[in-house]
């Protein structure tokens, strides 16, 4: 068995199954839409306030996707729209947000996942 291939597909899929199985849709800069993707979504994270040392909650959503599932390659600076549930308890209501163009996605060729950062988005 190709362990690397297994981790990049089935292994990640299995690790995402425990409560982080969030449906999302992508709209690529080419205009194409991809629906039915499954992602691991982290809605916030804890951090230390550098000024006070207090623990604070950063409302920063991170969406991790399996690269092998994507129809198109996502690169830093792409104008990419992501539809995902803002409330994981209500996964059928999707909200569309843009990928943060000022922040590069995190991805690694060896593991095969990509993490993107959606940004609060308003009607133009």
């Amino acid at each position, binding site marked *: 068995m190709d362990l690397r291939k297994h981790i990049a597909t089935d292994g990640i899929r299995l690790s995402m199954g425990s409560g982080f199985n969030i449906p999302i849709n992508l709209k690529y800069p080419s205009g194409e839409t991809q629906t039915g993707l499954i992602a691991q979504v982290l809605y916030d994270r804890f951090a230390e306030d550098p000024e006070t040392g207090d623990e604070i909650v950063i409302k920063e959503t991170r969406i991790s996707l399996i690269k092998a599932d994507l129809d198109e390659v996502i690169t830093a600076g792409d104008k990419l729209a992501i539809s995902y549930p803002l409330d994981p308890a209500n996964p059928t209501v999707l909200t569309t947000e843009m990928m943060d163009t000022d*922040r590069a996605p995190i991805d690694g060729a060896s593991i095969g996942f990509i993490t993107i950062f959606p940004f609060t988005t*308003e009607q133009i």
Partner: protein
Amino acid sequence: MSTIDTQMKFEELRDSVESLVKSFASTRFRVVTEQKESSGAEEHKDLKRSIQIFYESGSFPDGTSSKRESTHEITFQIEYTATAAAKVDLNALNDPESTASDILTALAASQGAGFTANRSIDELRRMIYQIILDPVNSQLGMSELDKNGAEITDPLVCGAKQVSQVRLVNFRKNAPIARGKIFVLTASEQLTCQVTEITEGATPIAVAQPGIELNHEFNTKSDADDADPATFEIDVTTTE
């Protein structure tokens, strides 16, 4: 009231500057007039932008205890904060009837939050500049004074100026704060000016005038001499 308890000119000016800026704020921006601790991005989300303005520092370069009047060089700190979200035609993106071409067009026309926040701070700076350096506001909301030192209320009458050398200096944008899903951009600037402070001194809080020693002799009445034994009476004799 002792003069130590009355406002100095810089305090009057502080109140005047706050009122002046607030009178132009309306829905354009929010005004915070105290030094705040760090605030959350959500706090600036609805109104988008705010300015903090407060008396930061001051000095008396020609002030000595032998002079009754001295120039107060004042610095107000102005902190600008703007937050922004990304902008896109969400209607086009969410419409199931949209074609790939429609979506491509909508995405291509989208604006990043950094662009919006930068423009927002630039607009805010323009507004503050136009308010503070408008010749009509050269006294920063303070009145001119007549020969007797009384405030002139008639705008057509000129008098002695209370505020001089009004300048906006050192505008600088800070690095964007990359936290969360809202883009936060801050900037700072100083408003400097001069006023004349008058030293009137302070009256010490005392019961008696200094230099006079008062001796109090307390004599308690015994109940036998007292007309009303239920009360406690004291005879006080004071001599200089």
